[in-house]
């Protein structure tokens, strides 16, 4: 009885420590982003910014290039979503429904592209982009982001489609639907929440992506690339505000899609 209790306690302690590990930096960034210029240097820090000030954020947003970069980040993310969904969703459906030769190899290949370190790829890709003349361009960056996002899109959508019973499609076919009609009228409505989650995840992925963005853009930077490039020169409050601005959409979206995050690790969840 005592042994059981001890392991329980340790589990909770571990969980709390992990949560703090993540949450403390986030809290630090959030508080600093809404403190006054002087308030950032306060030590020890109050739990809530005192006084609450929008100075830092507005300073950040007003700085040169920040809003255009943010805009570019949004555009890149949107293009990434469209392309990766158009390619990824049908692939996910095929993986879920059809038993084709090489299916498991295909699935393994998709997962292993993510295991490939992007650091190694970066120089060759940058060179290729420069040679093709598509460097420093939101569309070509979106293409790169697609390559990064596609494995997730395919796996998540395949999980979502697998979660819709095949029976329902077959019933629809016996009731007069062609396979496409069965998909549109029965599978899609049921898969929509999961697909929306995959879309949001792709957005977060693209919005936060910094490495490829830094390498592949110079003048038309996305927001993460901009912040990284200015890391040496920017003042502390600028960094905090930037960090918060990058963090905020991700946190919000993750709240909505947390249920579907399990599918990323292979578990089908409803």
């Amino acid at each position, binding site marked *: 009885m005592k042994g059981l209790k001890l392991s329980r306690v340790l589990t909770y302690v571990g969980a709390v420590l992990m949560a703090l590990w993540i949450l403390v930096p986030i809290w630090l960034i959030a508080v600093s982003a809404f403190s006054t210029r002087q308030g950032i240097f306060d030590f020890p820090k109050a739990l809530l910014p005192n006084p609450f000030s929008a100075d830092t954020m507005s300073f950040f947003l007003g700085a040169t290039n920040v809003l255009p970069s943010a805009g570019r980040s949004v555009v890149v993310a949107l293009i990434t979503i469209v392309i990766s969904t158009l390619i990824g969703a049908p692939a996910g459906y095929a993986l879920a429904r059809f038993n084709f030769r090489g299916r498991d190899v295909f699935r393994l290949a998709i997962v292993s592209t993510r295991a490939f370190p992007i650091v190694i790829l970066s120089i060759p890709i940058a060179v290729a982009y420069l040679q093709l003349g598509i460097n420093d361009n939101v569309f070509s960056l979106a293409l790169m982001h697609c390559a990064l996002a596609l494995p997730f899109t395919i796996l998540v959508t395949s999980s979502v489609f697998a979660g819709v*019973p095949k*029976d*329902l499609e*077959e*019933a*629809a*076919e*016996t*009731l*007069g*639907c*062609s396979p496409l*009609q069965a998909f549109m009228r*029965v599978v899609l*409505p*049921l898969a929509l929440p999961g697909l929306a989650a995959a879309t949001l995840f792709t957005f977060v992925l693209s919005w936060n992506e910094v490495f490829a963005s830094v390498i592949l853009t110079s003048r038309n930077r996305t927001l993460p690339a901009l912040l990284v490039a200015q890391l040496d020169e920017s003042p502390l409050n600028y960094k905090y505000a930037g960090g918060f601005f990058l963090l905020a959409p991700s946190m919000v979206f993750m709240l909505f899609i947390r249920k579907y995050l399990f599918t990323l690790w292979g578990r089908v969840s409803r």
Partner: protein
Amino acid sequence: MAEIQLDHIIKTYGKARATNDVSLTIKDKEFMVLLGPSGCGKTTLLRAIAGLEAIDSGTVTIGGRDVTNVPPRFRDIAMVFQSYAVFPHLTVWDNIAFGLRMKKLPDAEVKKRVENSAEMLRITDYLKRFPAQLSGGQRQRVAVARALAMPSGVLLMDEPLSNLDALLRLDMRAELKKLLRDAGATTVYVTHDQVEALSLGDRIAVMKQGVILQCDSPLRVYDHPVDKFVGGFIGNPPMNFLRAEGLASIGLIAPPGYDLVGIRAENLDSFTSPMSGALEASILVVEPLGSHNLITAKVGDELIKVNTRAELMPEPGSKLWLKPMPDKVRWFK
């Protein structure tokens, strides 16, 4: 006219033949039951009729039309799935109306058919609800209502009662029998429950390992099973099988070539004192089942099950004399 003709249907999964050259004729408006244990090929055959399973060879003909290469939506069928397959994102009303709307029937007719069907299955009160708000039994009714609302001549049912609890299953069986009789469609019904098969079918096709062993009326399948498997599968308790030489002592001689005798538990007269022409058996277990007793006994080294009247309560270990009714004795190889 919705006669179904299956000719030499072969369907293979990997190395195994799910249906091994199966041929069957189902008459117009007939209620055909496909009965057999798991893996015998009955569901594969049903899905071949529906068009959900592409067959390797053979032909499927419905109403005189060769539909072997025709997709399900053009076969004029209605199907009830074992899992019900009721659409969770639609109301009961929309579920039942689904197929009718796909056929582009006028709204007035759709309304009439949906309400008619719902009334037949007694789910009129649930028409506005979603499947998630219904119990399993109610969802099953929705599935049946959806199939019956369709103006098709063929009804296919894949173990529709197997997910219901025992009492509900009993009620639904009787209800289904009356409903389907009134509907007048050619029905193909898959089940592994032999009681369901006996109760519902005009004819039963008993299947094993991809082959139809016997296709006959329930009475004939029960009384004259074609082999040991059919005799042992149909009836509760299963038919008793004894070595033929054991019965020579009471004057029952096997025809040449047959070495096994089959006799059902209810076709043995039992006596508590020695009787000529009866086999001596020692009682192992007495199960009082209310309307009768089920006695498990040993004849020589073979087990035998006997139904006796409820008042006969012998002690385990005591002897019983069993006389098979001569016209109910069956011979097998």
